Structure formats: C-alpha cells, structure tokens
C-alpha cells in the first residue's frame, strides 16, 4: 500500500508539473463540450423557402403568410418561373421551392382541391424528411383557414373528417437537442481523455527507459498498475464533475436521476477504459503507436455508440458489434438517468455489462503486463 502511495504521489506530481498538458486536460474538454454541444444539433431550423406564385390570389397569399409567420421557415425572395426555382435550389440558395399554379384559387373554389408543387433539396435525406413533415403540417392548417375565408363558412360548420394527432413528447418535451446531446458528448470527453492519457502513460515510460528501471525493483505488478491508473481515475471523475456542472449551468440539462448513481457507474466505467488503455500500452512500443490504436478504437466506439445515429437504424450485424462498445452503454446509461430519472433497477443491465467488461479487460491487461520477458 505504501509503495502504491509513492507511485501515486509521483504520477500526480508529473501531471501537475506539465503546465501545458494540464491546460489541455482541463480546458480542451470544456471547450469541446461548449462547442460540440451547440454544433451537434439535429434540430431542423431556419429552413429557407422560396415561392413561385403564379396565382397571386388571396389563397396563395394566405399560404405564404402562414409560412412567413412560422419561426422555422424563412422566406427568401419571390421567384417568377420554375426554371429560376430550379436554379435557386441548385445553387443552394434555398432549401425548398413551392410552386403555386395560376389556377390555384379557382381550382380550390370550383373543384374543392388544388395542387401545390413542393421541391425539397434532399441531399440530407433525414433533414428533407423532417422539412417535408413541417411543410405538410402548415399546408394542412392553411386548408382550414382557406375553407373559412373563401367559403365564408363558420368554423363549426366544417366537418373535420381527418383524425388529428396531438403528439406529446416525453422526457425532452421541448425537443431540445442539446439536452439529448450534452450528456452523450460528456461521455465521449471523459472516455477520450482517460483512454488517451492511460494508453500513452506507461508506453511513455517504456520510451524513456524508466520502465526498465521500475522492472528491476521488487515492486509488484498490481502495485505499479494501481499506482499508475489511480491518478487518471481521479482525473476522469474530475472531468465528469466539471462536465456535469457545465451541462447544468450552461445547457440546463435536466438531472432527474441520482447523481450518485452517475458517479458510481462512471467509477466502474473508468476502470474499464483505463484497463483498456493499459492493455494498449502493453502492446505498443511508442506513444505514436499507442495513440494510433487508441484513436482507431475511439472512432469506432464513437460512431457505433448511438450518440449521433440511433443504434436501432443500424444493420443487425452492426447492432451486434455495438454490444461490445463500452461507450454505447455509458451513453444509454447517462441519458436514462439524467433525462428519464432512471434508477439503479433500470440501469442494472448496463452496470453489469460494464462491470464484466472492466474485470475482463483489467485481467487481460495485468496478465499481459510483463516485468520479465
């Protein structure tokens, strides 16, 4: 135990001595959290919409006003013909072009129906889909308004034949993407930082030759490993704390569940990540190699974590791979606890998986760390 304390003391000294590194450790994650959380939004807002109004009637104006009044849309300049509309779309000056045919109002009055042509830039299919839904909703509303205005019918005379759905959004009722993203990004930062630091730490001593010096001492493997990893474990928890404070203060992320549970889970999760870092360290000779391998796994972990893309929409084989991804369990966990207020019972499966992973990888890491070749 005394030996471990000597190592921990030395590691902390080295961490705090390197001022530039220290700045990187603390300032970068904070910046990343602030910037990424604002950038990684899937909100579909500021949709630029253009009209080609060949009708110029009351009805067409009602339609346009409705879009104008909606905060999700910003109406660009009025276009005159379909060719101009296509050009505009092509140049990327607008997201949507709506063409109102010249017999629009007449058709509405005479035949009780009219057609609108809507062109949407669908390079980003997901966004285009959402935009389409928004446009359709507004057109639906216009339907009603026009009916009232044109036919002079009173509202109670309109027979609403369609079924209205009133969605109610649970757990994130304002549909705020930041609420959804911030905890996930926090998970990434905690993981990246601790993985990179631990993967590089022991291999650095290999490079310097100090590891050989350590190996000639009667120190036990477990003493060295615990002494080495404990400081990063503490660092990981500090980063988590800073991140949670920012999440609350800056992004107002709800924290419905137990914060104690978050710390408990993170404590075990960090053991897993540090063990993995150690394992990488054991199998590499230089910091570059360690960094490269750590990045390789990190990219896979991030993309397959369910943070940016839902796991449910991945092919089955990819979904199976995500079962091995520690970040997946943490992202799932932190969203459940912070946003849904899940308790230990609900997150127990995640906890158990992470615990098993942690035991396995640390076993492997300790076993593969050799004082003697």
């Amino acid at each position, binding site marked *: 135990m005394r030996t471990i304390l000597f*190592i921990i003391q030395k590691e902390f000294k080295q961490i705090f001595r390197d001022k530039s590194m220290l700045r990187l450790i603390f300032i970068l994650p904070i910046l990343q959290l602030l910037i990424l959380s604002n950038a990684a939004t899937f909100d579909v807002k500021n949709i630029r919409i253009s009209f080609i109004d060949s009708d110029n009637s009351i009805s067409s104006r009602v339609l346009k006003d409705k879009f104008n009044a909606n905060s999700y849309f910003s109406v660009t300049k009025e276009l005159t013909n379909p060719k101009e509309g296509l050009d505009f779309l092509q140049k990327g000056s607008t997201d949507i072009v709506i063409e109102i045919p010249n017999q629009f109002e007449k058709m509405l009055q005479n035949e009780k129906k009219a057609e609108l042509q809507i062109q949407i830039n669908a390079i980003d299919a997901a966004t285009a889909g959402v935009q389409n839904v928004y446009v359709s909703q507004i057109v639906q509303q216009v339907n009603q308004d026009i009916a009232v205005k044109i036919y002079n019918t009173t509202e109670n005379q309109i027979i609403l034949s369609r079924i209205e759905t009133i969605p109610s959004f649970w757990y994130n009722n304002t549909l705020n993407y930041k609420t959804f993203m911030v905890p996930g990004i926090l998970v990434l930062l905690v993981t990246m930082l601790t993985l990179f630091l631990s993967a590089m730490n022991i291999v650095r001593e290999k490079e310097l*030759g100090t590891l050989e010096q350590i190996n000639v001492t009667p120190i036990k493997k477990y003493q060295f490993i615990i002494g080495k990893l404990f400081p990063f474990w503490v660092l990981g928890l500090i980063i988590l704390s800073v991140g949670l404070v920012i999440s609350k203060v800056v992004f107002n992320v709800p924290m419905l569940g137990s914060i104690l549970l978050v710390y408990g889970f993170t404590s075990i999760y960090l053991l897993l990540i540090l063990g993995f870092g150690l394992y990488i360290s054991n199998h590499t000779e230089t910091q570059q190699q360690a960094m490269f391998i750590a990045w390789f796994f990190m990219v896979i972990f991030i993309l397959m974590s369910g943070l940016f893309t839902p796991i449910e929409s991945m092919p089955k084989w990819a979904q199976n791979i995500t079962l091995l991804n520690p970040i997946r369990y943490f992202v799932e966990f932190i969203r459940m606890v912070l946003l849904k207020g899940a308790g230990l019972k609900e997150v127990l499966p995640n906890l158990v998986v992470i615990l098993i992973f942690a035991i396995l990888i640390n076993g492997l890491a300790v076993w593969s760390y050799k004082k003697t070749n």
Partner: protein
Amino acid sequence: MVNHISNEKVIEVENLTKKFGDFTAVKGISFHVNKGEIFGFLGANGAGKTTAMKMLIGISNPSSGNANVAGFDVHTQSDEVKKSIGYMSQKFSMYDDLTVQENITFFGGIYGLSRKQIKKKTAELIEELQLGDITKSRVGSLPLGWKQKLAFSVSLLHEPKIVFLDEPTGGVDPITRRQFWELIYTEADKGTTIFVTTHYMDEAEYCDRVSIMVDGVIEALDTPKNLKKQFDVDSMNEVFLKLARNIE
C-alpha cells in the same frame, strides 16, 4: 587493492543461455563473482553482454542454465533478487520532470524505504555528492555527468549487495568518468559488489577481474594484469582488440 574482496560468491552463473527464436544471444556462459569485487563485463556491441546482464537482474528469463544472484535463483526468485540488487541502465532512467529530491523519494519509496529513511539517505547523498541546492532542480536540467552520479547513488539507496552498472559513463568527459570511478571504489570498499559493463578499456583496468564476451561466449576472464600477460600486450585495449580480431 583487492583487500575488499571476500571469497563468498555472490553471483554464480552456470551454462546461462538466451535464445531469441533461432538466434542465440548468450551461449551457455559460466562464471562467478566474489563479494566486494569490481567485476568488469566487457564485450563488443552485440556480443550479448546486455542480454546476459538482463537475465542476472531478473528482467529477462534465461532459455536454459542457472544463475544465482545474492543467493537467489534469478528464474524462480526474481523478486528476492531484485530486492538485493541495484541497477543503473545505460539509458539514463530517472524522471527528468521530477526534481532530484523527488526522484530520490520515489525510488526510495518503491524499494520500501520509510519516509524517515529516505530523509536520512537524501541528507547523506547531498553530503557525499555535494549536491547542495540542486536537490530542488529538475533532473532534466542537470549535466549528464551529474545525472549519472545521481543515478548511481539512487541505485544504492536500498543498500543492495550487488549493483549492476550498464555502461554507466557513456558520453561524459574523462574527469567526470574518473570521479564516477571514485564513487564506485568507495562503494566497493563498503563491501558492495560491482558488476559493470563498459566500452572504455581504461576503465577495464580499474576492475578487479574482467571478462570479455565475444559472440555470446566468454572468451577470457581474469585480472587485467593476468590478461595482459596472457596475451603478451601492454594494455587492456590490445587484449580486447586481439580477442575481437581472432574471431573475425
């Protein structure tokens, strides 16, 4: 000069062999070192001396053969061996980003010294090496000669029976080397056994006995005086060249 040597054998090596795949780096060497002896372990680059030394200090397992260091088997009791030996590698291996004091504390600590002992040892070191106020400077900022003296002293913190020095004076000027050898003599006089590898043949002359390794085999082992007589030359340098040339 040899009055510090006793007849007790502190290193006994028998048929020690190390293979890396098809390549045999150390080919069944046998020798012994007496307590208090300054034993020079010489050889050209790639002759296998570092490999042999790594087996003796317990960080490399022998492929076959036996080695007994400080009364313990290097293969089965490597932790016991490690408690009884000090080691200074050719690659300077203290922490550059820590101060002299912090390095002493750390290495003392992992050798199991108490804080009190560390304090005492530090005071002694400052006295012996005339470290003065550099104890608070970072090791990385010291000149190489200082670093080497410091590394030697640190390897002695836990008062080992044997200290292994792997090319301890590489890259420093003759005066600093001379000072370093004075430290070695002081330590040997206390009864510590010194096992040292070097490329400097003048240093070989300082040793009580010298072995010369060529191609994984010990080709010669005796006092420098006897070796010179045996090869009928005036200096260790010529002994070394003669041996190495014979092989080629």
